[in-house]
């Protein structure tokens, strides 16, 4: 698959301005945000392939509503909100799709050192995938992307206190699962 060369990944870049409805701006938003959206989805979903599918689904949904987006809100926060909804929806359908996904993965040639294999070997990641999606999303937005609780609250459309509660519950659950308490 052809790819677009990008500068090295940096967490939480300075906010860029976009014009709603502009296809060129949406393409720029895609290139600026894709890796972070994918990172979030990989944390929420079971494998990289599914996360990539959901990332594309996220941008398709976002593009359909792009003309309605309001610049007052962060475009990337808006994308994260859509991505988390896509991930939650995918989790619901996960069991139904397991058989088809297995066939598709068997059909893919092994690309050598697959970075997603690291995630599959990580106890922490395996534990995170068992968290409720909203808790896992809060965790990755806070501890990987570096968003504040207020920014997460704005992205997810929930009160800041809810974010704090989700983070506390997620950390408590992980500590229990990993035997750190």
């Amino acid at each position, binding site marked *: 698959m052809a*790819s677009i060369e990008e500068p090295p990944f940096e967490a939480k870049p300075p906010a860029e301005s976009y014009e709603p409805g502009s296809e060129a701006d949406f393409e720029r938003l895609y290139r600026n945000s894709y890796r*972070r959206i994918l990172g979030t989805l990989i944390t929420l979903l079971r494998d990289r392939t599914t996360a990539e599918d959901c990332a594309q689904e996220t941008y*398709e949904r976002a593009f359909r509503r792009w003309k309605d987006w309001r610049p007052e809100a962060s475009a990337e926060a808006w994308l994260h909100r859509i991505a988390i909804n896509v991930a939650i929806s995918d989790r619901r359908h996960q069991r139904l799709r397991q058989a088809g996904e297995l066939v598709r993965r068997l059909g893919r040639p092994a690309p050598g050192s697959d970075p997603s294999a690291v995630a599959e070997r990580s106890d922490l990641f395996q534990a995170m995938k068992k968290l409720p999606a909203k808790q896992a999303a809060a*965790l*990755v937005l806070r*501890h990987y992307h570096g968003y504040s609780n207020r920014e997460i609250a704005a992205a997810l459309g929930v009160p800041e206190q809810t974010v704090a509660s989700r983070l506390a519950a997620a950390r408590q659950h992980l*500590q229990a699962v990993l035997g750190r308490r």
Partner: protein
Amino acid sequence: MSDIERDFQKELEDELHRVLDPMSAMPIPPRRSAGKRIAARTVLGGAGAALTIKLLTGVAVAAAAVTVAGAATTGSINPAVWGQQVSQYVADCKAKLADGQHGIGDCVSDFSNQHGQGVASDARHQGSGSGSTNGHGNNSNANDHAKNKNRGPQTKGVSNQHDPTDPAVHATVTVSPQP
């Protein structure tokens, strides 16, 4: 926040970066076009699917109708069969003519009537469906077979068959002698 809690958060962040950073550094694929998927959905799903099915069904029905009509007309799926039968029968009629006798119209007319009645009978059977009854528990096909027994092998289940010599319907055809 306790030291344990702080250490755990640090570990959490380190682990997230260790796992996600290599994946995030991979090339960005081209954005999937929603337009193509929408176009495909239009053709393959919803009203598009219904229209496609109707069109395919129409083509299939038309093809079947042509095949059935051809078979009913010629007695065979191959349209050349009836023509060959006629040619053969005309040749036979000519061969049966005695010396000095002219005209094979009666002979050909007899064959034509047999074929026409056979096609009509087949069409009636196809129209009523195989094994249909007449409301009295009698199978119409069986009735036709019974009539055929009384009429001999060349009169195939008809009641209004013309006499081969009926001049009002079949004019005599004169064929010039072969060189």
